[in-house]
């Protein structure tokens, strides 16, 4: 195949797009105009209909009603193949590259007309010529699994351009990138739109990205178009109002000062453990969390934060080092965590903190089901008491569930997280270890969960918070540590925290 430079940006418009699944209307009369060569942002909460809209545009769904205009001409997109033919492409949130293939192999095999026998010398020359025209520079000879997340994301975009796409949907393209990587990537993409090589529709939930890079913005709420306009004419407040409407948002407590000389609750010294591949280790030389402070750990996913959490939670063995809670060695046994009031809010709560097929009541009772009223172990489980306890917490933490007897896996992500919070934050909490608590949750749930974490801190708990969301860390933490390559490489107090310095350290061990 000759790799032609794409014939230039193309505009895309949806007219009265409506999508119903049975009686549920996922998309209600949405008309969006993305003009040729523009950088258009699509904002909305989870479940607002963003992905339904782009799936309709890409031919994965057939809209119940509505039309598409591509280059001001009416277009029928019955399948992803039709979208390909019109030059419409999408970069998904998860990577669609094949990890064990090299970049070059990934590009060539994605073409619709791969020859039976691939003449690599010729292909390499064509690829080199193509890469010369790209603003991105990455190696095509390494297997994709060895690339950093930012490079993978660039390769995904390169792949779309290699396939001759002129209109690109980017689905939260920066969710796995450092701030530096994200800025570079979006800057390059923006450059391509300015040169009118490409039209971009970017799904995002980060306001600062939208204001910094996008020309136009459309906001969806509950399947309806809540607003649209030039980015220059809208501020964060207006965007937030469009996104969440008038639902109440839990206010976050103001930060009470950490008492001077507060005792160290968690101290980790000289800890080392193997990571998931078994080839690398994480090493934590010294980490202390005192009562009444939130210590945030920033880092790109896969740099050892998960392993650290697993060691602290007892899910992973350690090779060396000491973990102490309130001055005594801590081995993450049930008795120890109960005795010293250690609580966990892990990421992917359904997998790491729940038994998916047990009921809501049973899951809420996992910490206390075998204790009697005086905190002594009991032989016979008081199922009535368990239910009453769960009912109280479900009401207090506003867990929306059909019944206490429904399996917890039937709940939405936000409600599973609320149920876990209810279990972990009730009773005395001296040490709270939290990881990505708000991943994939909507605005109201995020605000509420952050407020609860802050409340626990103000109540005197020591909080260790690992998060891939820098904004979250900046909002909640008293100190921020950066983890890269399995080690803590940087520490800053919140007062001196600078996003760019943190980002540089996050990327330091790639």
């Amino acid at each position, binding site marked *: 195949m000759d790799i032609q430079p794409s014939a230039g940006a193309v505009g895309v418009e949806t007219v009265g797009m409506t999508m119903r699944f049975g009686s549920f209307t996922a998309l209600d009369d949405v008309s969006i105009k993305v003009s040729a060569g523009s950088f258009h942002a699509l904002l909305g909460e989870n479940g607002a209909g963003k992905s339904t809209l782009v799936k309709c545009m890409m031919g994965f769904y057939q809209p119940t009603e509505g039309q598409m205009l591509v280059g001001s001409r009416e277009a029928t997109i019955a399948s992803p193949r039709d979208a390909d033919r019109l030059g419409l492409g999408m970069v998904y949130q*998860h990577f669609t590259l*094949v990890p*064990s*293939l090299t970049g070059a192999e990934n590009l060539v*095999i994605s073409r619709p007309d791969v*020859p039976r026998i*691939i003449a690599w010398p010729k292909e390499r020359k064509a690829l080199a010529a193509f890469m010369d025209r790209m603003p991105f520079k990455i190696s095509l000879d390494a297997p994709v699994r060895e690339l950093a997340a930012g490079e993978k994301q660039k390769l995904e975009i390169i792949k779309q351009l290699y396939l001759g796409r002129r209109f690109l949907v980017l689905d939260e393209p920066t969710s796995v990138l450092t701030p530096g990587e994200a800025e570079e990537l979006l800057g390059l993409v923006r450059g391509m739109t300015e040169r009118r090589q490409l039209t971009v529709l970017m799904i995002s939930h980060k306001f600062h990205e939208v204001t910094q890079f996008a020309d136009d913005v459309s906001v969806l709420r509950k399947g309806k178009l809540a607003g649209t306009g030039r980015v220059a004419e809208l501020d964060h407040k207006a965007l937030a109002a469009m996104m969440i409407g008038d639902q109440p948002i839990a206010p976050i407590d103001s930060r009470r000062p950490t008492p001077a000389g507060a005792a160290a609750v968690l101290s980790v010294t000289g800890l080392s453990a193997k990571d998931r*591949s*078994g080839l690398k280790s994480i090493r934590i030389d010294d980490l202390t969390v005192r009562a009444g402070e939130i210590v945030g750990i920033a880092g790109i996913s896969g740099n050892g934060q998960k392993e650290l959490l697993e060691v602290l939670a007892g899910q992973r063995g350690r090779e060396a080092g000491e973990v102490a809670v309130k001055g005594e060695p801590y081995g993450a046994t049930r008795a120890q965590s109960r005795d010293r009031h250690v609580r966990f809010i892990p990421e992917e709560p359904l997998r790491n903190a729940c038994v998916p097929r047990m009921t809501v009541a049973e899951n809420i009772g996992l910490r206390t089901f075998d204790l009697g009223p005086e905190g002594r172990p009991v032989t016979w489980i008081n199922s009535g008491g368990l239910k009453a306890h769960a009912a109280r917490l479900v009401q207090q933490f506003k867990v929306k569930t059909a019944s206490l007897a429904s399996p917890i896996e039937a709940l939405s992500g936000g409600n599973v997280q609320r149920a876990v919070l209810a279990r972990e934050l009730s009773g005395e909490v001296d040490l709270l270890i939290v990881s990505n608590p708000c991943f994939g949750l909507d605005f109201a749930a995020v605000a509420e969960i952050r407020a609860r974490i802050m409340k626990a801190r103000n109540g005197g708990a020591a909080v260790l918070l690992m998060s891939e969301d820098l904004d979250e860390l900046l909002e909640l933490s008293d100190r921020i540590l950066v983890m890269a390559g399995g080690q803590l490489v940087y520490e800053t107090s919140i007062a001196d925290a600078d996003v760019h310095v943190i980002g540089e350290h996050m990327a330091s061990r790639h």
Partner: protein
Amino acid sequence: MTMSDIGLWSVPLAMLGGAIRVSTPFIFVSLGEAITERSGRINLGLEGTLVFGAMAAYAVAVETGSAWTGVVAAMLAGAGFGLLHAWICSFPKVNDIAVGIALMLFGIGLAFFFGKPYIQPAAPRLPAIPFGAWSDLPQIQAALSINVLFLAGIALAVALWWCFKNTRAGLIVRVVGDSAEAARAMGLNPTTVRLIATAVGGAFAAVGGAYLSLYYPGSWNERLSSGQGLMAVALVIFARWNPLGCLAAALLFGAAGALGPALQSAGVTQGYYLFYAAPYVLTLAIMIATSSPGRALAGAPGELSITR
């Protein structure tokens, strides 16, 4: 039979000859399994396919008088078993390992059932090329009398290694084996690709069986296979799913398997039975040496049910 006076040299020589003779079924079965696993499925039924292939090859060779017709018949039967495995596994929530074990027992049982009448008659043997004709020593002549299928196996390993890198079909198999999601996004149908890969893998495994019954040991009976089909699975993991690695590993296993007979022919009369167990000990040792509780297997196709 006279022992020539090359003394203990006969042991490595017999091992070389044995490696070449014994390794051929390993080569074919492991290459077949490598193709199947590279597409993201494990076919544990290859032991059954091998035994049934051995029976089919022998029976057809007896009936037609042509050993090569027997090999073709084995390949067809093997492809049939592969298709059956892949077809059952294409249903949702079917475990490929359980299906493989069922098909292994099914293949062996079916082979015994149809193979009863063929235990007595003699079939024509596959031809060998006497590369050792230049030498006067019978040991060298014996060691270098190389079967055509062994050479075919080497060619096949090299060809597969090349194909995985340089052909559309090879890349497609790797894509499907590593990420079914990515394959679907490219418009490929993983089920179809796996169907074909498993069928081809079955056909190769059956060729290994044909070699057993038509060349070495060269007869059909119910104790023909000594677990080659199962050990080939371990061998593929040891070879990190690389066809050239499969070839090398098969030779290593073949040499280990030839240790017992070689010692026996060199006049060692005690304890050589222990060395018959060498390939199995080697399998265990390799599996222990290459495993680890804390990490995933490097190079494993991402879609395999054991690594996913």
